[in-house]
């Protein structure tokens, strides 16, 4: 007679519940995503092509003989800064516009979100990565610009150059945040890039003068243009090229910090709008 002995299973000891380190986990996720974006910048040729083009064109123009004057610097600085601004805008917009759509097309978005990475973390990570990549690119450009400037003028305007670099980087931060929002709202990276380019260039060229244009219009156009003037991010505030070219004194540091705060507010606004839009968007 066999009897089945009842086996009382021994309860498997479960690990004690640990409090989840939310902030550390969030930051790790964000920086991991940002790191991937940064590595993408090394692999892609955009930056190298633009940098080589800028440096070659600037150096060629610098070798032109202008009435035997060897120390002419300002025209060269202006051309170099123009190329830096164009290149910076191209790198920022093209790098950012393809981030979310590429993840969706390669079907890597689903596994990414299936891991303990929230949509907000993903968006923030992409923003930080693109912004950091743009910053690195800008740093290289501005080092070249400083070297070029020193070779002609034999003097450093380090404070001005640092201010200019940081302001330019903050401006591109706004553009990156706008582009991320656009990549969620618009259908394709191409349309997103085009719209952001047009809007950014439009603000840079006309943003400062919209209030004068509004004064010359009748109602209701005057109210509309004035509202646009006060609401849009004034990217032209960060364009201090004329100060760098003509060796004006550095901007007062408090004013400079105020501009950085202004940029931070708009970056936060666009990122917040992006998170709201991304939350409602279906990823399939």
């Amino acid at each position, binding site marked *: 007679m066999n009897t089945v002995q009842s086996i009382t299973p021994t309860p498997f000891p479960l690990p004690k519940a640990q409090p989840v380190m939310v902030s550390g986990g969030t930051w790790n996720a964000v920086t991991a995503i940002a790191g991937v974006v940064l590595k993408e910048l090394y692999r892609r040729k955009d930056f190298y092509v633009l940098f080589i083009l800028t440096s070659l064109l600037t150096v060629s123009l610098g070798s032109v003989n202008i*009435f*035997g004057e060897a120390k002419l*610097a300002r*025209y060269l600085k202006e051309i170099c800064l123009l190329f830096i601004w164009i290149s910076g805008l191209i790198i920022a917009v093209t790098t950012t516009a393809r981030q979310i759509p590429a993840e969706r097309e390669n079907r890597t978005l689903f596994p990414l979100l299936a891991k303990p990475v929230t949509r907000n973390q993903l968006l923030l990570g992409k923003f930080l990565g693109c912004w950091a990549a743009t910053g690195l690119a800008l740093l290289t450009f501005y080092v070249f610009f400083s070297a070029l400037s020193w070779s002609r003028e034999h003097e450093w305007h380090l404070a001005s150059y640092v201010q200019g670099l940081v302001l330019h980087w903050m401006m591109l931060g706004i553009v990156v945040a706008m582009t991320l929002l656009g990549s969620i709202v618009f259908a394709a990276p191409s349309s997103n890039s085009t719209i952001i380019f047009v809007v950014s260039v439009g603000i840079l060229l006309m943003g400062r003068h919209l*209030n004068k244009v509004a004064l010359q219009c009748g109602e209701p156009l005057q109210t509309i243009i004035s509202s646009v003037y006060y609401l849009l991010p*004034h990217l032209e505030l960060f364009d201090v090229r*004329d*100060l760098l070219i*003509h060796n004006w004194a550095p901007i007062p540091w408090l004013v400079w910090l*105020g501009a950085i705060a202004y940029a931070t507010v708009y970056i936060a606004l666009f990122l917040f709008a992006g998170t709201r839009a991304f939350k409602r968007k279906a990823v399939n």
Partner: protein
Amino acid sequence: MPGTVWVITLLLVVGCSLSTRLEPWFQNWAGSRTGSANILHITLGDSRRLFAKHFYVKADAYFHSGYYPSIYDTRPKQEKMHMAAAAGAGRGSGEEETDHLGHSRDWIDAFSRHFYPSQHSHLGEKKQAGCCDHDHDHDHDHAAGTTCDHEPKQGAEMGELLPWLKLSAALDPDQPETYIVTSYWLRTHLKKPEEAERFLRQGLQAIPGHPEILLELGRIYDENRDDAERARNVWQLGIKNWQKTEAQKPDANVFVYAQLLGHIAKLEEKQNNKSEALRYLRVLKTISPNKDAIARWIEELSK
């Protein structure tokens, strides 16, 4: 296949025959750009004049260290550009345009003025403490040789205008002002009369016998080379060309004529040719707005 070959051969023959007919016509066509060997002329056509104007204005902006009105502000007319007025080119008086920025319209405008040149200044000036806080509404004679209460202009910095002026001249060689302004800054501030003369001669190749260019060329011979004979010849040619080309026009550039007469009269006076000097001064008196000063000069010479 042979049919295709014949068709292609036929088309090639027709194309070559047409080109022999059309090519001579195209070479003689007035709108052809092949008359010029200049790559800029060929690629840009007449639109290069727009770019030339833009770069000329850029040189003026450089003269003001970036402080310059945009297209949404009131810009100085070409004949009143400060850089040109200082060089003696242009017909305007030496009066400087007032501050185009005015009072700030809102907090964004006020804040943004820290991020671009928003104070009136000139290239090469070192501002003394407290200077240039005054209004620039007053008559400010910026003619060559006079300055306001600033330290003397630093010559080397004036060279920063040159690339834009050179580019402007390359794009539109038919503008005499570009040559005159460039020559002025080259010979006075950069001490390069040879380069100035070479550039003026380029201008004379593009615009043969232009009185303004001859005036400036004469100044090089007179002020920089001390060659009175050549200066006299060049100025006399300038006067002769002005009488031939400008005198009949209703809006003739009398200012240039007056400058030519004034310079040659001064030269003749220095050379003790009083009769010649008086002859030019009598003509100058008829056209000058400053008849009293000319009359006094004539009186002094007649003694």
